[in-house]
């Protein structure tokens, strides 16, 4: 989908967020607004009552067509901290397994007065399809679609970087591992370039890189020594064995030897480099336990910030969607 089409679908007539599907098409000012709003929501987690009444009376449905624990839980917590009512639809036992089409199921949920869908789907573009053709008046949040995009994960990673490094200017960020199957990497590359880091690098064997990866705006490296030299942030990706249909790797052991983040290979990066991972981590496959639990690791902080960032996205999209409805009513 083109950048302009992404923009038109995601923003209302006032340029405010109404669906959050993809980083592509969103400008730096809007990404910064998400990060700033998330900043304010972090303090909600410090209250005795960890809730604000912003989405009281709104219904958020979590539609996870693909397994997830962390993302679904943090979306649920985010919606609950905004005082929304949350429905978790277990797709495997729901009506689609009885032959109901996706469209019929969603329109039934719409008839139950749901205000927002959080969608994860194995097919790239499924959340776009829902936002464009099925339920345009419901705010759609992409919680990961196929190999395409995972924009809230990218934004929580951006939040983590800004929180710990202060700014994006001048930073060298290395993304290491299975870029080919990673929707997180695609969204991160887009977000990092939009927010203006110095350099985005990918470090991986050729078999785990998409064709024409340079066109995403990255420098390609095939060794940790070169790729991590001078890096301020190292983002490790999980080896997505469940998505590998052909023999892309000689063996996990060899992958770890060449591309695993160990105490030794981390020394190539800057001494204060952040170690990040979107999870779930495979200890000893792409990252050494001592590094994952080490002083430079912010992996668990990413999870915590994820709640505030998702609160920001949910409240902004709901706000933009309501503004659009109010505009339509006035013009009618």
């Amino acid at each position, binding site marked *: 989908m083109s950048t302009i089409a992404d923009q038109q679908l995601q923003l209302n007539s006032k340029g405010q967020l109404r669906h959050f599907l993809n980083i592509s098409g969103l400008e730096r000012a809007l990404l910064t607004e998400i990060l700033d709003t998330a900043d*304010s929501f972090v303090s*909600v987690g410090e209250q005795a*009552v960890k809730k604000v009444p912003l989405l009281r009376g709104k219904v958020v449905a979590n539609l996870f067509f693909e397994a997830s624990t962390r993302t679904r839980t943090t979306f649920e917590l985010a919606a609950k901290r905004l005082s929304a009512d949350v429905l978790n639809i277990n797709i495997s036992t729901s009506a689609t397994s009885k032959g109901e089409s996706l469209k019929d199921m969603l329109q039934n949920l719409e008839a139950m007065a749901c205000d927002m869908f959080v969608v994860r789907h194995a097919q790239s573009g499924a959340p776009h399809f829902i936002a464009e053709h099925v339920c345009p008046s419901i705010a759609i949040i992409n919680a990961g679609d196929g190999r395409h995009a995972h924009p809230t994960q990218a934004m929580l990673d951006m939040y983590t970087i800004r929180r710990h490094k202060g700014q994006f200017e001048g930073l060298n960020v290395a993304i290491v591992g299975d870029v080919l199957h990673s929707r997180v990497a695609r969204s991160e590359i887009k977000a990092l370039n939009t927010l203006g880091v110095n350099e985005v690098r990918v470090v991986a064997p050729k078999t785990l890189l998409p064709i024409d990866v340079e066109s995403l705006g990255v420098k390609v490296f095939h060794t940790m020594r070169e790729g991590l030299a001078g890096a301020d942030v190292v983002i490790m990706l999980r080896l997505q064995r469940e998505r590998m249909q052909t023999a892309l790797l000689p063996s996990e052991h060899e992958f770890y030897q060449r591309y695993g983040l160990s105490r030794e290979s981390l020394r190539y990066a800057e001494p204060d480099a952040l170690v990040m991972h979107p999870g779930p981590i495979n200890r000893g496959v792409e990252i050494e336990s001592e590094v994952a639990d080490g002083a430079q690791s912010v992996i668990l902080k990413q999870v915590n910030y994820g709640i505030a960032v998702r609160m920001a996205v949910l*409240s902004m999209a709901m706000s933009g969607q309501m503004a659009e409805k109010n505009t339509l009513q006035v013009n009618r």
Partner: protein
Amino acid sequence: MPLWSLLKVGLLHSRQLGRSKGNKMQELPDVSPLMDKMTEDLKQLLVSRAVQNPVMVGIHTGGAWVAERLHESLGLAEPLGTLDIAFYRDDYDQRGLQPQVRPSSLPFSIDGRHVILVDDVIMSGRTIRAAFNELFDYGRPASITLVTLLSVNGRELPIQPDVCGHELIIQAGERVKLAGPQPLALKQVKVNS
């Protein structure tokens, strides 16, 4: 650009518009003598209520500026807290999320504490209602004392300040805002709605 300077630009613009239409603007009092009066009134009130060791919380943005000065002149032990009530507003369905929300910061537990809540201008009372709700999500204060620099007509909720620098009657379509932080000055503004 900080929010207050944007506010000032907007204010200047609306003042000029007001003048060009020949509208008369009310004389607004200087802030500094009001602050002195409020400090004295607040000290007396705290004595009469036997409040000891209170904490102070200012509402973003103008209320926090007023609170900074009161906090200093009262010499309170605990640092000043600030609230941004944007997430507790009652007009989210109509107006959506306000841009530029600042984090609330209460660097103390408010459980069992006497809280002095400070805002710049009270009009409808809805901001204070929102602030009460937010405060109670942090804990159960022993008491809340409400201090405002200015009280104008137009109350929509039964909420009155305990200490108030000045009371003012304004016409429909008028508002009074506090410009700052240096110096603090009350400004009259026209609004469309």
